[in-house]
């Protein structure tokens, strides 16, 4: 069983969700239910398993239900039907004090428009989660200082949110979510409100942090490039329904339907695809396929990093795994095909 289990979640907005639930379970889609009952289907039979320590991205356009989904994980929204568990613990069964304790200790959340407390300075914002937990001032300020420095905002402790740029505000939001040392980080379009350059910086920063911290991150975005860049696995949501779940390469190489295909069309494939997923594998023992003068490349290398090698040599390349064992070959033609398709 995975760390976070979401089973058959339905969320229907309206005065009498139960009546519309029967229709939804019977297979009616969003538009039909809206026309018949006036109820809006937020999520339609969504099931997901999220592993501990992975960065799981939920991608969808506005109205796809992605923000609704992430709010189910800390019960800012309760489902109309379905189960959600963390490490085997049913979070829907929790009463308010248990739920609050669960939110305090195990979850951190980062918001699209930052959600900072405008009447508190950077220090007090970052220390907010610890303050809610009842940590004494000295201790929480020590922890907050550490995280403020970690996100590169040392010296800004006494500034207020409206005195900071968007990127800096979101650094505060990130530090605030990390300050309580949560197991799970929920990020709701955390970088969508930022300028492209700043956004890219923040993505790199997050990946660097994640390489050290190994949190379970659930990241919501409407941007496929962002999803492919930071996600270990990606779920694609459309009209409240799950369309596809898979690793970035699976999404690009084998889109589940036209909807996903349309998304992946403009993706820079060389940044997503890795040597391993497009190489010609060699069976163990058959080393004759590999020639000594071919350059070696790592199985996890991205095409963007392989291209200079391929262009410089013009020959095929040997793909080696982490133990330096040859596991496949890659010809320039294969690269061209992968980038074209």
């Amino acid at each position: 069983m995975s760390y976070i289990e979401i089973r058959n979640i339905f969320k229907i907005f309206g005065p009498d969700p139960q009546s519309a639930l029967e229709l939804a379970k019977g297979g009616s889609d969003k538009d039909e239910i809206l026309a018949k009952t006036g109820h809006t289907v937020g999520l339609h039979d969504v099931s997901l398993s999220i592993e501990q320590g992975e960065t799981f991205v939920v991608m969808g356009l506005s109205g796809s239900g992605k923000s609704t989904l992430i709010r189910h994980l800390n019960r800012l929204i309760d489902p109309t039907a379905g189960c959600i568990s963390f490490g085997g613990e049913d979070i829907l069964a929790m009463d308010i004090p248990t739920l609050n304790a669960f939110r305090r200790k195990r979850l951190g959340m980062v918001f699209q428009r930052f959600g900072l407390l405008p009447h508190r300075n950077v220090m007090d914002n970052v220390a907010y989660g610890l303050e809610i937990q009842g940590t004494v001032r000295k201790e929480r300020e020590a922890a907050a200082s550490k995280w403020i420095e970690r996100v590169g905002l040392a010296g800004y402790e006494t500034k207020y949110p409206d005195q900071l740029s968007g990127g800096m505000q979101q650094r505060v939001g990130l530090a605030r979510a990390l300050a309580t040392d949560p197991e799970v980080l929920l990020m709701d379009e955390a970088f969508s409100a930022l300028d492209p350059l700043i956004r890219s910086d923040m993505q790199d920063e997050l990946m660097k942090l994640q390489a050290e911290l190994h949190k379970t991150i659930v990241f919501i975005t409407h941007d496929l490039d962002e999803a492919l860049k930071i996600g270990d696995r990606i779920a694609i949501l459309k009209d409240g329904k799950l369309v596809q779940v898979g690793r970035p390469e699976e999404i690009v190489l084998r889109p589940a339907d036209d909807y996903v295909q349309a998304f992946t069309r403009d993706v820079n494939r060389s940044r997503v695809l890795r040597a391993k997923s497009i190489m010609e594998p060699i069976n163990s023992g058959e080393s004759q396929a590999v020639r000594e003068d071919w350059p070696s490349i790592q199985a996890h290398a991205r095409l963007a990093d392989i291209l200079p090698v391929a262009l410089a040599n013009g020959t095929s390349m040997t793909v080696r795994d982490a133990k330096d064992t040859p596991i496949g070959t890659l010809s320039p033609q294969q690269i061209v095909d992968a980038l074209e398709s």
Partner: protein
Amino acid sequence: MFPEQLNVPLGKWVNQFVDWLVVNYGAAFEAFADSLLTVLVALEQVLRGAPWWVVLIAIAAITWHASKNWKLVVGLVVAMFAIGMLGLWDKAMQTLALMIVATSLSVLIGIPVGIAMAMSNRLRAVMLPILDTMQTMPSFVYLIPALMLFGLGKVPAILATVIYAAPPVMRLTDLGIRLVDQEVLEASRSFGASRKQILFGVQLPLALPNIMAGINQTTMMSISMVVIASMIGARGLGEQVLMGIQRLDVGAGMEAGIAIVLLAVVFDRIGQAYGKRSQRSHDAEDA
């Protein structure tokens, strides 16, 4: 002509109800009135007993605390000084005491009611027409039962003032809390804040500018009640206006009217300064 058979004897019922209140709860009303009166009289004695310059210094200090603007301090001190020059200092202090008690009572009742209205849509739906009634019902209508329950004097004046002046602070507390950014609230909830932590740590601080505007309006409305309050025996500037009207002494009425306006200006500017301060609290700290 509207058919007489359909008449509802509402007036008779109200009379019976008030009679019943007086007979059965007269003692309780009297005890409540006495405690209110004690507070008011004590405050009045302090204000009237204090030398005029002490009051001026106090007002200057409060204005400075609120605004950090010496021009405003000078302006308001001059306004208060002018009231003294009109020969109405003592009466102004009586009015001031009545106002402070009525405003405090309005705020003490109004903020919790406003919070409750923000928490419950149902309560809000019930309260809004009641607040409309409180503000539009001619004050004499409830002055009469108040007189029957509490007798002539200061207490019914305070109560009439509270009924008239409390709605703005209730409305604006409700509005201020409802206007708090949803994402900030979500953030606070997502960190596991309890309802109490959200109310005192997020909603009230962020609603403060609106609440301050409500308190300011409440203060202004309680000043505007001084003339009516004087008709049921409250002393002060309103009494002077009333006397001016009764004796056709236009000059005396005008003097008292100007004094009321000056008092209102002083309180409005102090209230607004506090409102601004609550809005941009951190600018002052940076400066």
